[in-house]
């Protein structure tokens, strides 16, 4: 492999998209209103589309002859590098929207920065995905505001989701030696800048929604190193079922 750091970086982006897309797919047919069934399915579809492009690029970087499906479907749990946030269960609509909002508020500035990357393929994927992500963030921000400033119940549910998910937020800005190598070469942005933009978006939207930012500093991570929550195994059981039950077949 020519560039293990870049492979790892792209794999992390791919896994975030895949696992969140997989989670959103569970909503299909069960949304609170038909319009939201369409919206959640649409966001899921965008994320799966992004995952395909990202895995294709990761496979190319790896140079081991694997394709996007082999990367997406045929790894073991500790080889998936997504953040813990995206594997958390859907919960109620508030939990799903807040999880998505925290993610979108991170992905948008990240893609905007990656559009400037000298790694052409990564810049191209970011340029295509940034439009989708901007729409996702607009959609989830609007719902956070609606729920926060809606009824007493919706406010409580939204606040409960924030309080629960807050512990997973800081992992979005995880950095290790791989990131630092790429940052030093000027290929990817530093996370500090992304985190500042994330905080700005989150603060503005939660303020408008009359929701509070938790004061606790309880932080979970491990996903980026392949250490996952108990939920991950069940996600993979569904995701990998066909590929594991019927190995080496084409669909």
């Amino acid at each position: 492999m020519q560039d293990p750091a870049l492979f790892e970086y792209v794999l992390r982006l791919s896994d975030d998209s895949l696992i969140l897309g997989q989670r959103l797919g569970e909503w299909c047919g069960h949304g609170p209103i038909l319009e939201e069934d369409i919206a959640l399915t649409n966001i899921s579809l965008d994320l799966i589309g992004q995952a395909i492009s990202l895995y294709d690029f990761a496979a190319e970087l790896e140079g081991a002859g694997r394709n996007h499906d082999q990367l997406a479907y045929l790894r073991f749990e500790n080889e998936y590098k997504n953040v813990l946030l995206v594997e958390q269960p859907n919960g109620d609509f508030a939990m799903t929207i807040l999880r998505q909002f925290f993610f979108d508020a991170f992905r948008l500035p990240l893609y905007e920065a990656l559009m400037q990357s000298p790694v052409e393929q990564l810049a191209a994927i970011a340029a295509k995905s940034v439009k989708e992500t901007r729409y996702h963030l607009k959609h989830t921000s609007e719902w956070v505001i609606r729920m926060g400033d809606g009824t007493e119940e919706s406010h409580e549910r939204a606040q409960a989701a924030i309080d629960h998910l807050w512990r997973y937020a800081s992992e979005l800005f995880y950095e290790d030696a791989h990131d630092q190598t790429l940052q030093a070469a000027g290929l990817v942005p530093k996370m500090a800048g992304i985190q500042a933009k994330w905080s700005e978006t989150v603060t503005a939207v939660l303020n408008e929604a009359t929701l509070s930012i938790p004061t606790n500093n309880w932080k979970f991570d491990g996903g980026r190193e392949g250490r996952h929550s108990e939920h991950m195994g069940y996600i993979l059981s569904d995701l990998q079922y066909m590929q594991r039950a019927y190995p080496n077949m084409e669909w």
Partner: protein
Amino acid sequence: MTQAEQERRFLEKIEKEIKIEPNDWMPDEYRQTLIRQISQHAHSEIVGMLPEGNWITRAPNLRRKAVLLAKVQDEAGHGLYLYSSCETLGADREQLIDDMHTGKAKYSSIFNYPAVTWADIGTIGWLVDGAAIMNQVALCRTSYGPYARAMVKICKEESFHQRQGYEALIKLCNGTPQQKAMAQDAMNRFWWPALMMFGPSDAESTHSDQSIKWKIKRFTNDELRQSFVDATVSQAEILGLTIPDPNLKWNEARGHYDFSEINWDEFWQVVKGNGPCNKERIAARLKAKEDGLWVREAANAFAKKRAMKKSA
């Protein structure tokens, strides 16, 4: 204008193939027939999301997952246009949905059969969407304007769905013996329910005559069912799948395929709520409605607050 005069003008429009539009006078029974038929179609789209949605998380590769997501999303979109068409007739979307939950309104019985293997997803696309298209192409010329226009858009998307289903089956039928067997098994289970999608035989159909006169329907249930069988036999041959009907054979004199009588007992049992998944489908829809109640309340409360701020 007297009622008799209005009715005469209405029938004249029907005769001259001029579309009936929402603000035009129409007989009450025409309006009710349309609401019943269009809402039933809308409910079918929505309930139809469940058996397929069930396979999104287990789709065998990323491309299939994306295609299935796109398809199910289209179905939700179809449900939306169709409910909107009903609203042009003065119906209330929430009331229509409640009527489905109580069993007063029906949806296509095919969705009361379970989707148990991946081959079922391909087969639903091919046979179920195929049967739906046979019905819906005819409805593109239906006499009520908003319904006809919704159908034009829906038919384009349904054709895509049928192709993707057929294409998924081609993969299975050209794959391993295990995959081929999976496809044949799905065919065995879905063939008869697909034929039942055209509804009761003409002799038993209570709504057909008047609907044909008003040009809501252009062909009878049996005519459409025959067209579907005629179109599907060669498609099954290409796949190398056997249609589970020993009496299926070309009838030179009729210029059509003959086929066995449908098991009407099963048909009526499923219509009456005793199919394998009737209870699960309604329970899933009811749960979505109940779980989503606070979300809809929040959206309404928020909209009111913002409107008040604006006017203040």
